[in-house]
């Protein structure tokens, strides 16, 4: 069973920097203030939607419109300032996949730690080391500290770990790929498999073709408000018209 229920969700970020002025970029969260020393950025306002088993939701909108913030709230990384968030099912987020990587520890050790973070027991995580290491194609480098890897190799390991544990609800911020040309093809296949296996998908992306292909419904955010929520093609077409003029 996997479902996401969100109602009247509001998120605002307190601004600690002593700044004045209230101009925010077009399409991004706007400033709000009570007085000079209490300022916020209103990141999300009155968001609501439901997502059930097997459904795929795409999220589109300009930079700063609240896509990642919304994903973080669903992933349980940020609390709602107001409103209701109900999640049923194991959530896994591919928002910033390098989080939780310890560069001084070996590749193997990182797989173990990240497996435990994902909720596996130490023994279960240990059993996964071999297939994750094999997927990352790091050979015996897996026994060296991650600090010694090339950036492409570190990304490959990250990707292999992040996509190894299949969740009920998958949250993806921008389609991720990793590594050189040969690895990218493999990564695409793995992403597709992960999505097929997940109970529900929420994908935020600027790649409109991808969103149209992957999602059955699309949520269009603008300055933290829902501009449209409906069938993927309709919403994406409207968004295209607005952006392309």
């Amino acid at each position, binding site marked *: 069973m996997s479902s996401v229920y969100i109602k009247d969700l509001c998120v605002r970020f307190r601004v600690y920097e002593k700044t004045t002025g209230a101009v925010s970029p077009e399409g991004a969260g706007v400033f709000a203030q009570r007085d000079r020393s209490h300022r916020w950025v209103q990141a999300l306002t009155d968001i609501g939607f439901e997502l059930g088993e097997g459904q795929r939701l795409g999220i589109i909108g300009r930079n700063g419109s609240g896509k990642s913030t919304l994903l973080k*709230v669903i992933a*349980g990384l940020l*609390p709602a300032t107001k*409103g209701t*968030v*109900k999640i049923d099912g194991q959530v896994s987020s591919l928002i910033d996949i390098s989080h*939780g990587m310890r560069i*001084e520890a070996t590749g193997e050790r990182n797989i173990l730690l990240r497996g*435990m973070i994902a*909720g596996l027991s130490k023994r279960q995580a240990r059993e996964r080391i071999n297939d994750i290491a094999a997927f990352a194609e790091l050979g015996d480098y897996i026994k060296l500290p991650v600090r010694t890897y090339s950036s492409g190799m570190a990304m490959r390991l990250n990707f292999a770990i992040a996509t190894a544990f299949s969740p009920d609800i998958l949250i993806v911020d921008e389609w991720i790929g990793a590594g050189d040309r040969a690895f990218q093809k493999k990564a695409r296949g793995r992403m597709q498999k992960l999505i097929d296996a997940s109970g529900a998908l929420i994908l935020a992306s600027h790649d409109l073709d991808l969103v149209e292909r992957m999602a059955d419904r699309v949520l269009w955010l603008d300055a933290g408000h829902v501009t449209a929520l409906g069938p993927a093609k309709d919403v994406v077409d409207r968004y295209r018209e607005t952006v392309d003029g």
Partner: protein
Amino acid sequence: MTLAPSQWSLSGEGRLPDLLKAGGLDVGQGFLRYELWSSLAQDDLRQRYRRTLFGLAWLTLSYLVFILAKIFIFGALNPAPFAWFAAYVTVGFLIWQLLNSFVVDGCTSLINSETWVKGVQLPYSTYFYESISRDLIIFAYSAVVAGLVLLLTGYFPGWAALSVPPALLLIILNGFFLHMLLGIICLRYRDVVQIVQTAMRVLFFLTPLVWTVDQVGPIADFLVWNPFTYLIDIVRAPLIDYRIPYTSWAVSLGMTAGLGGMSFLVFSVFRRQLAFWY
């Protein structure tokens, strides 16, 4: 089977009972991730002593050198028998070091976990347990020295020493509460980190560690206001004076209850907001 919660809900406006319940769940679920936080604590320390010849044994070695210097310098100034004073300094300082690390690391445990808090969904208490177990590993390596000094000075444990394990448990409990309280407050008000660190440096001299109460005359009256005096006494007195200090136990238990209530309240009420405080 997975340990991560698979069903949860977060509603914006929480009532106090709900907040307390969620706070309690956080503390409980965090504890259940013991395989994770104990591994993370070990990694932290291994990383600190990476590529050194002695590795973690440096903890024992540096404590030994440090404590010997203290014994010989302050022992020369103290009228008490040398063997007793050596044991007094070693045990007292061992507990002080543990308490100090609980306070100082408590302040920074959440601040230093920024990328984790933002990146992975774990009970926040996981970071407290990680920090506390790191402090306890360091404590264990130093305790070897303390044990040696006690044996060499002829202070073999007597019946009263049976009260030491529960005393240590009480201290660890205080460590957890300090992490909850200071972790949250310092995350929001970063100046508190500096205030606390400065205060601890001063408190070191105001705690009977390298001097004895009868040495300082009227200042001794002020010691009743220093909470660390009692927590150190409940471990030190049974080991070197073969008595259980009931007054110190009573004060320690009272303080722990008060600190526990306060820190759990602060943690439960503010934990929902803490992701915004980075």
